[in-house]
C-alpha cells in the first residue's frame, strides 16, 4: 500500500472527477462529498509520502511497473522539495473546495456546480501531476491538463470580462506550452530520452553539454515556463484572468498555478539540465536576476496604481514570481532555498488574501478598494485573516513571508546581487503602503449606514441601477459570511503562520533534498552546501 502512494494521490481526484460526471451530472449536493473525499484521500497520501521521504529519502515510482531501461515507462519521482509542494497543493485544493461549497460563484447552487467540481478536480490532478512526474514530456501533458481546466474555470464566471480574459489566457497559455513542447523536442533530438534523470545523465557528457541543440532546448523551455508563470514581460494574461474569474476558481488558480510553474522551472534547472550546466555562464544568471528585479519593481508599482482589490493582488503575484525566479537564479544555496521556501509561503499567503478578498468583494458589492469601508468592523474574523496574509506579504515575522524574504536577501547578499536585495526591500515597503491603505479604508472608513452610496461618481465605475439593487440585497440579507467560507480562510491564515513558525524544519527538508540530489556535481558548492 505505502509504495503505491505516488499513484494514489493522483488517481483519487481523477476518479473523483469521473465519478461526478457519471453519478451526479446535475446535482451539486451529491457532487460536493465526492470532491471532499477524493481530495482528502489525496491529502492523506501526500502527507504520508512526505513523512516517508523525510524518514527514508526520495521515492521512485514507475507507472505500470515499466522500469527505466525500456525507456517507455513514466517515472514519478518524489524528493523532499516536491513532497512539500504536493502537500500544499492537496491542502489548498481541499480548503478552496470547502470555500466553494456552493459552486463556482459562491451564490445559490446552480446546475453549473458539478461541472465546476469536475474541472476543479482535474485541475488538482494536473497540478499534482506536474509536480510529481519525472518525465519531461509528461510535464507538457499535465501542464495542458491544468491549463485547459483553468481556462474553463476562468470563463465560468458571470462577468463577460472573465470570458475575454479566458480567451487571452488560452492564447498566451498555448504559446507557453508550445514553447515548452518545442524545447523538449530539441532535448529529445540530442539525447533520445524523455526521462528527466536519463536526460540529465546524458547532458553530463561533455560533448552533449557543449551542443547548441541543448542550449536552444533550454532557452525554449525557459521562455515557455516563464509565460506559464507570468514572469514580468510575459504576464499579460494573469491580472484580468484572476480578477474576473469566479471566486472558487481564483482561490485555487492564484495560489497554485504560478507557483507550480516556478517549481517546473527549478526542476528543469536542477534535475534535467543540472545546476552545473545552467550556472556555468555567470552572465546568464546576472541577466535573469536583473529581469527578476524589473519584475518585482514593475509588479509592485503597477499594483500601487490599482483601484480594484483583486487586480491589485494579481499584480502582487507578478511581483512575487519575480522573487522566486530571482532567488533561483542567484546561483547560490540560500537563494535556491529561499525560492523554494517562498513557493510554499507565497501559496499560503496568496490563498489567504484571495479567499478574504473574495468574501470582501461579495459583501461590498464591488471590487473597488474604496467600497470596502467599514468592512473590517462588520467581519472581524475575515479581517483578521486578511491582516495575517497582508503582514506576510509585507514580510513581518513570524509569518512565512518574513522567512522567505530573509533567505532570499541572505542569498542576494552572498551573491553580491545588490539590486535584487534593494528590490526585495523596496517591494516590502510598497506592499506595506498598499495594505495599510486598505486597512485605513476598511477599518477607519465611514461605516456604511443607510446612505452608503454617497461616493463621488466615478466616470468608469458608476454602478448601474441593477447593480445597486444587488448591493442592497447582499448587505441587507447576507450580512454575515458563511461558515464554509470563513473556516477555510481561518485555516489559510493559520497555514501562513505555521509556515513561518515551522520554517526551521521546512528549510531543513529543502536543504536535505538539495544536498541529496545525485547530480549536483560541479555545482555542489553552489547549491548543496
Amino acid at each position, binding site marked *: 500500500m505505502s509504495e503505491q502512494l505516488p499513484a494514489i494521490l493522483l488517481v483519487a481526484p481523477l476518479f473523483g472527477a469521473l465519478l461526478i460526471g457519471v453519478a451526479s451530472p446535475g446535482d451539486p449536493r451529491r457532487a460536493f462529498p465526492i470532491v471532499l473525499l477524493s481530495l482528502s484521500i489525496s491529502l492523506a497520501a501526500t502527507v504520508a509520502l512526505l513523512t516517508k521521504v523525510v524518514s527514508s529519502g526520495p521515492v521512485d515510482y514507475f507507472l505500470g511497473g515499466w522500469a527505466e531501461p525500456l525507456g517507455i515507462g513514466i517515472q514519478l519521482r518524489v524528493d523532499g522539495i516536491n513532497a512539500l509542494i504536493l502537500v500544499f497543493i492537496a491542502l489548498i485544493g481541499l480548503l478552496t473546495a470547502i470555500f466553494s461549497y456552493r459552486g463556482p460563484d459562491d451564490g445559490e447552487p446552480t446546475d453549473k456546480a458539478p461541472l465546476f467540481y469536475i474541472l476543479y478536480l482535474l485541475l488538482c490532478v494536473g497540478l499534482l501531476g506536474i509536480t510529481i512526474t519525472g518525465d519531461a514530456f509528461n510535464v507538457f501533458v499535465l501542464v495542458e491538463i491544468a491549463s485547459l481546466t483553468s481556462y474553463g474555470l476562468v*470563463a465560468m464566471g458571470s*462577468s463577460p470580462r472573465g*470570458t475575454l480574459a479566458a480567451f487571452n489566457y*488560452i492564447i498566451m497559455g498555448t504559446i507557453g506550452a508550445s514553447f515548452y513542447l518545442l524545447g523538449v*523536442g530539441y532535448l529529445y533530438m540530442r539525447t533520445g530520452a524523455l526521462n528527466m534523470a536519463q536526460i540529465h545523465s546524458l547532458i553530463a557528457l561533455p560533448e552533449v553539454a557543449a551542443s547548441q541543440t541543448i542550449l536552444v532546448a533550454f532557452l525554449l523551455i525557459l521562455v515557455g515556463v516563464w509565460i506559464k508563470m507570468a514572469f514580468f514581460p510575459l504576464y499579460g494574461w494573469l491580472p484580468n484572468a484572476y480578477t474576473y474569474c469566479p471566486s472558487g476558481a481564483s482561490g485555487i488558480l492564484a495560489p497554485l498555478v504560478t507557483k507550480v510553474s516556478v517549481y517546473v522551472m527549478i526542476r528543469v534547472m536542477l534535475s534535467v539540465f543540472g545546476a552545473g550546466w545552467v550556472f556555468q555562464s555567470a552572465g546568464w544568471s546576472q541577466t535573469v536576476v536583473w529581469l527578476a528585479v524589473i519584475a518585482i519593481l514593475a509588479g509592485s508599482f503597477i499594483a500601487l496604481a490599482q483601484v480594484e482589490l483583486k487586480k491589485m493582488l494579481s499584480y502582487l503575484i507578478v511581483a512575487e514570481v519575480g522573487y522566486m525566479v530571482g532567488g533561483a537564479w542567484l546561483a547560490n544555496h540560500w537563494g535556491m532555498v529561499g525560492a523554494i521556501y517562498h513557493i510554499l509561503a507565497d501559496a499560503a499567503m496568496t490563498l489567504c488574501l484571495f479567499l478574504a478578498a473574495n468574501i470582501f468583494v461579495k459583501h461590498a458589492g464591488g471590487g473597488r478598494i474604496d467600497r470596502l469601508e467599514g468592512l473590517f468592523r462588520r467581519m472581524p474574523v475575515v479581517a483578521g485573516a486578511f491582516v495575517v496574509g497582508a503582514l506576510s506579504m509585507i514580510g513581518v515575522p513570524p509569518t512565512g513571508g518574513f522567512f522567505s524574504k530573509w533567505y532570499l536577501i541572505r542569498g542576494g547578499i552572498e551573491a553580491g546581487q545588490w539590486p535584487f536585495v534593494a528590490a526585495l526591500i523596496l517591494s516590502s515597503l510598497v506592499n506595506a503602503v498598499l495594505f495599510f491603505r486598505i486597512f485605513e479604508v476598511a477599518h477607519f472608513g465611514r461605516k456604511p449606514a443607510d446612505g452608503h452610496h454617497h461616493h463621488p461618481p466615478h466616470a468608469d465605475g458608476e454602478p448601474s441601477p441593477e447593480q445597486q439593487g444587488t448591493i442592497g440585497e447582499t448587505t441587507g440579507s447576507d450580512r454575515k459570511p458563511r461558515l464554509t467560507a470563513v473556516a477555510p480562510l481561518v485555516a489559510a491564515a493559520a497555514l501562513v503562520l505555521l509556515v513561518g513558525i515551522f520554517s526551521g524544519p521546512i528549510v531543513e527538508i529543502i536543504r536535505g533534498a538539495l544536498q541529496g540530489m545525485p547530480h549536483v556535481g560541479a555545482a555542489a558548492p553552489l547549491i548543496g552546501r
Partner: protein
Amino acid sequence: MDLLNQYLIPHFNYWAYVILMMIGMHAMIVKNNLIKKLIGMSIFQTAIILFYVSIGVKEGADIPVLHHHAPEVAESHTPAADPHHAVDPDHYANPLPHVLMLTAIVVGVSTLGMALAISQSIYKDFDTLEENEILAKIKQGGPGIDV
C-alpha cells in the same frame, strides 16, 4: 548557392516548421478577429507537430515492427544474431516522436474546442468577435460589463 546547399536544403524541414510557426504566431498576436487568432493558434501547434514528425523520419527505414517470420529481412539486417530477437535500431524509423504527437494532437484539439466554446460565449456577451470592438464596449461600460 552555398547558402542554399549548406543551410536551406539539408534543414528544409526546420525552415518549414519555423516559417509556419511564425505565420501562426503573427496571426495570434496581430489579428483582430478572435477566430483568426484561433486559426493562427492551430497553425502554430501544427508547426510543432510537423517538427516532431520530421525528426523521427529516416531515409529508407522500415516500420518499427518486429519481423519474426520473415527470415530474409532478419538476415539482411543482422545476419549473426538470432533472427527472432534481433532488432537493429538503425533500420527502423523512430516511432516515439510520432506517438508523442498523438498526445499533442489531442491536446491541440481540446484547446481549440475550449477556445471556440469561449469565443461563442464572448459573442453572446458582446455581439462581436472583433477585439477592438469588444475593448471599446468594455471601455464604455454597460450592463454587467463594468464589474
